[in-house]
Structure formats: C-alpha cells, structure tokens
C-alpha cells in the first residue's frame, strides 16, 4: 500500500518532530481503514444521517405533514407514556410477534438449510422452491393468498374438516389473527435459510471427515462442529431477524388492510406509527414513536452483542 510505504519512508528520515511523527503514525494506522470505509461513510453522512436527525427533530414538533412544524418540547413523548392505550396495544402485539416469530423462523431456516446442504439429488430445485415464498415479498397478492388459506372456508379448514374439525376463521378472529401472521413470517424463511446455507458452505468438509474417522456421531458433529463454526452466522440471523420483526410492517398492513384489526390484534408498532403519520396527520408523534422503537431495538441489540462472548466463536 502506497500510503504506508510513504509514511514509513517519511519517518525513516527522522527529520520530523515527535508530534508530527505520531500524527503520521496515526494517519498510517488509520488511513487504510477509512479509505475502505469511505463509500459507506460518505453515504452515511450525506444520505442517511440528515434525514434521521430531521426525524429526531420532528419528534419534538407537532408536524402534520401539510403545514410547517411547531416545536412542542417533550409533549409527544409524554402523551405516549401517559395517554395512549393504542401505544400499549401495539407494544404488546409487537413483542409477542418478535418472541414467537424469530425463534420459529430461525429454527426452521436452519433445519431446512442443513437438509438442503448436501447429499441428495435435486437439491437446487428444492432450494429454489423453498425460497419461492420469500420472493413474493410485499406483493399485494399475499393478502388474498393468506385469506385463501386461513379464512373460514380456506385451505386449512378444508384439511381440518377431513378430521371432522370445524376450524374458526383464523385470519379474522382476534384470538388467532396474529398467529396467522407469525405463520406468514415463518413461511417466508428463505432469507435466513440462504444465509445459513452460505455459512454451512464455509465450514471445511475435512473437519467432518476427521471427526467421522474419530467415530463422532452426526449429532455430536452438529454440536461440536456445525454449531460453533456457524455461530457468527446464527448470531447475524438472530440480530437481523429480531430487528426486522420489531419493525415488521408489510405483513400486517397488507393482510389487515392497514387497519391492524380485528380489535387491534395485528396492530404492529410500525403499522400504528404509519396510521398516526399518514392517516391521522401526526407525523411529529409518529417520529417520536419511531425513536422510542430505535431505543428499544438498540438496547436489545446491545445485549445481543454482549452475549456473543459466551457463544459466538470467531476464527481469530
């Protein structure tokens, strides 16, 4: 690298003061990192940071989308803490969704990824089929498809009817509707599955070969080789899926038609935020909701990172 070579040459001459030398040393140590970081750093400072700070400012205003905002101090945050039952309802729904959907989805994705890793004919086709639901993403067709599965006369109840069970209208019953969205999330397990697959592919096969020669059973191989070597990827999927689940918007928006109903049973946090911002013209309040969510997710993520020393193994 030219920077380090040049710096080395400069210090070699020994004609600089101690201060300049240490400065040069700092530049030499830091320059490569910042050069590689530059595209992201520019994007962050120019494209991401500004809008985020504006939204932080707006959370202290009464911004209604159509008129200029007025500063109102902590009012939005006070209302959230003291006088907003829907905020509590949305919190409840969101936490339940996170707790249920994240572990289920990850367990499913890991199990399928292990199955689809190697050893069978036709694996590329299966992989593609299992990824297909995730391709549907935010398609408006999802609403219709999910009703077709989970309405009173839907597919699920047709199957139950064979066993003589008359199921409820899962998707429109406040007792079950959230669970149909958990199923939707698990059904779209393609992304973590692919990431697990890529992780499994990075585990050198000779490690398994050596273990087999030592007579290790396949479950022992899973616990002693697969899990530890996959732990950085598991950690990644866990953190990302949790953040995504906290922010989940599209499934509830599409399936409940933006209402969060029946009876707030699918009122996800960001769906409520969206209703407040664009339905009720309270962008200021919505911004406050957003920043409270950021704090919640940040605390959660910080704890996840603190936990890594106990279970995530990096090869360094």
């Amino acid at each position, binding site marked *: 690298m030219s920077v380090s070579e040049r710096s080395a040459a400069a210090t070699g001459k020994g004609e600089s003061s101690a201060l300049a030398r240490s400065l040069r040393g700092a530049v030499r140590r830091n320059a490569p990192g910042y050069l590689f970081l530059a595209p992201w750093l520019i994007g962050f400072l120019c494209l991401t940071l500004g809008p985020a700070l504006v939204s932080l400012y707006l959370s202290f205003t009464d911004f*209604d*989308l*159509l*008129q*200029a*905002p007025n500063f109102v101090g902590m009012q939005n945050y006070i209302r959230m803490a003291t*006088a907003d039952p829907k905020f509590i309802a949305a919190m409840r729904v969101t936490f339940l969704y996170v707790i249920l959907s994240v572990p289920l989805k990850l367990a499913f994705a890991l199990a399928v990824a292990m199955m689809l890793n190697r050893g069978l004919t036709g694996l590329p086709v299966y992989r593609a089929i299992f990824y297909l639901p995730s391709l549907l993403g935010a398609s408006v067709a999802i*609403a*219709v498809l999910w*009703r077709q599965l989970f*309405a*009173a*006369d839907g597919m699920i109840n047709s199957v139950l009817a064979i066993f003589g069970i008359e199921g*409820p*209208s899962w*998707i*429109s*019953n*406040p007792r079950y509707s959230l669970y149909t969205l958990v199923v939707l999330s698990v059904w779209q397990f393609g992304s973590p599955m692919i990431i697990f697959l890529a992780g499994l592919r990075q585990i050198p096969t000779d490690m398994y070969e050596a273990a087999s020669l030592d007579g290790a059973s396949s479950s022992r191989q899973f616990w002693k080789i697969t899990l530890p070597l996959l732990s950085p990827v598991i950690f990644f999927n866990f953190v990302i899926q949790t953040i995504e689940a906290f922010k989940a918007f599209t499934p509830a928006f599409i399936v*409940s*038609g*933006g*209402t969060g*109903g*029946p*009876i*707030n049973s699918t009122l996800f946090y960001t769906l409520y935020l*969206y*209703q407040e*911002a*664009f*339905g*009720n*013209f309270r*962008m200021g309040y919505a911004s406050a909701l957003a920043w409270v969510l950021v704090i919640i997710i940040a605390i959660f993520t910080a704890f996840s990172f603190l936990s890594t020393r106990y279970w995530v193994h990096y090869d360094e």
Partner: protein
Amino acid sequence: MSNFTMDRRRFLGAGLGVASMPLWGSVPGFAADGAQLRMVWWGSEERARRTKEAVKAFEGVNAGVTVASESMGWDDYWPRLATQVAGGNAPDFIQMDYRYMFEYARRGTILPLDQYMGSALKIADFGDVNLKSCSVDGKLYGANVGVNAFGTIVDTAAWQEVGIAAPTYGTNWEQYAEKAAAYGKAAKGKKKYASADGSGNENLFEGWLIARGKSLYKDDGSLGYEPSDAAEWFKFWAAMRKSGGCVPADVQALYKNTIETSPLTLGYTASDFGFSNQFVGFQKMNKPALALTAQPVVANGKPGHYLKPSQMFSVYAKSKAPEVTAKLINFLVRDPAGAMILGVERGVPASPAIRDALIPQLDGPSSEVVKFISALTPYVGSLPPAPPQGAGEMNAALIRISQEVAFEASTPEAGGATLIAEAKSVLKKG
C-alpha cells in the same frame, strides 16, 4: 424549517448519464412555466385510460399546455401525496376525497376555487347541493366529479331462491331484520346469510342517525349522538347476529373496506352495503346479477341519505398555473369534449346536461347506478355538518368497538359508552 418546502425544479438529466439511455424513454420536464401541468389521481387502469384520453383532448385544444399525469391505487395515493406536499412539490391538479378535503383545505394545501367560478370554471349548473358538498367553511375547494350515495347492494336471485322478497326502496330496519332472519332460517346449514354486519359501517350508522334526527357530528364539530343511540345501534346488530340474519363476527372481520373482501363478494351474503360508485366494481367481482337500492329507512323517520362527491378535482395551493388547472378541471367535468370521455367511471356527473347526454350510451351496471341516483331523490336529505378533525380516527374507533361487541368482548351498552368516551378524547386532540 423554512427550507423544508421548496419550489419545483427543472428536471436535470445529469448524473450517471442515464437520461440518455434508450430505455429511459422521454422524460417530461417538471413545470417551469405555466404551460406545464402535473396531475394526479387514484383509481383503476380503466380510469387511467379514460383520463389520459381526455387530457390528450385538452392538450389538443389548448396549444402550449402539456399535462404529465400520475396515477396509483388508493392505499399508495395518500402517503405519496402527503410526502409531495411536505416537499412543496405536489401536482397542480389533485384528485380529492370527501373526508381528506377537510384535512387538506383546513391546512391551506388546496386552493379555494370561488375566484374562477364563472370564468375558468363554469359549473354553476351543478346546483347548490353539489357545490356545497365540495365546500369547506363556505369556500369551494373542488369540482364534483361524481355524485355518490350510500345504498344496499342486493343479489336478487339469492333472495328469490329462498322465496323472500329482497329489500328495496322504503324497506325499514325492522322489516330488514325480519327478512334477514327468515333468510337465515331458510338457508340454514349452507353458511349463507342475508346481510353483512353493518354495525361497524360509519356510512350506514350515519344514515340511521340522520333518519332518527341525529347526526355523526354537530356544526361545532362535537358529537351529534348520545351513548344510548350507539348502544341501540349495536343492540340491533347483536340481535341480527343472534337470529342468523347477518354474518358472524369473524366473517365480517374479513372485510377491509374493499370490494373483494366484502362478504357479498366472498359468497357469504345475499346483500351488503356500499357506495354507488363501487357498484360497477362489485358487479365485476360477482357472478350473480346485482341490484342497487336504498339503505333501510327508519319507520316515520327523516330521509337518511345524502349526496356527496365520489371524488372531486382540486388545485394545489402552490400551483404556478392555477387558472390553467381550473380550465382543465372544467374541461373534464363540464365540457362535453372531456366529460363524455370520462363517462360515469368516477360516478354520476353532477352537471345535468352531461348526465343527460351520457345516459343513452351506458351499459348495464352503469345505467343501474344512474337509475339509483334518480330513484333515491325522495330518500335524500340535506348535507350533514362537516366532519371535524379526528373524524378519520372516529371511523376506526367505530369499526374496532363494533368488533368488540360482535366478538362479545363487550356489550352493546358498554360499546356505546366507549365510543362516546373515545370521541371526547379524539375530537379534543384534533
């Protein structure tokens, strides 16, 4: 935040040089002078086709004027428009909705059009009713594009099948309940019901209130009914559910205020409630021939219907060419050269001259809508007081509370009390 809104800029094809790519197509510039308009509406592809054709005709007779149009579905329309308004970059010509008109007009986002009446905008023949229904605080904020009324949509054949006369003009609520219960008995075991559950339908509730001499809101923006009214409404529907006259709670909860989630379209009921401008869409999604009739009346009550615009055409307050935009509006709603192309796709035209000219060319479902609007006259009362800020939240509250009652998480009495309590906090927040 004075720099928060800004003026429109001319499009620059710079950066990456992509503008010169053949795939890019021709990019219409943003208005730099008065002759270039931007226009936006929500709606189907059919609406887009008709509107663009009419706009082309307008460009043909107004040399130098070009119109760039944008269209999308209802759900996407409002966040996008609000974003553009916040950026000071909304289109000159904005399609408006009755409820959103109040929000936008009161915040100074759309322009009062009174100054153009008689000059660019020659719509005096719309009549008082149709001008008033597009006004906020005495000022005209849009041109009525379609006269709309709430009604009952009926699958006549399904009623005939069980030998019960379908509800029609003048059927009162007691008769409606009796018919529905009888239908439920006759169709028992088939999972088919007479009626949708209307307890969470604000339009239906409003018609019922008006017929009883009340209203959703008073002139001062406060609530126009008592807890006992709401409780009685919820009680009526609880009895309907019990008698098997309307669908159970979990079927009604499938309804997301769209045609394809209506229990009628999903095959559960022989009738549902909806706006007249939705009728053509209902017919498209339903195999049996449908009929449109008035909503049930209150025995010895007042007329509960009123006419409101299905949508209206408005002008963005920061438009640089408000007069040309007003001219375009006039062309589309009053000039036969434009209005005949739009047809009745947005609703029945408010101008009698245009309406009369259109009637001969209408097909089945469209002519049913025109017939409905004229047959409705005896059931139509005056325009109720304007909805206050927060009215949208009250609509959501009614749906939620009606579901709490329907799923028996609450009683009709408690539901009525909750609704009024929420109204007090919502309407105060504004």
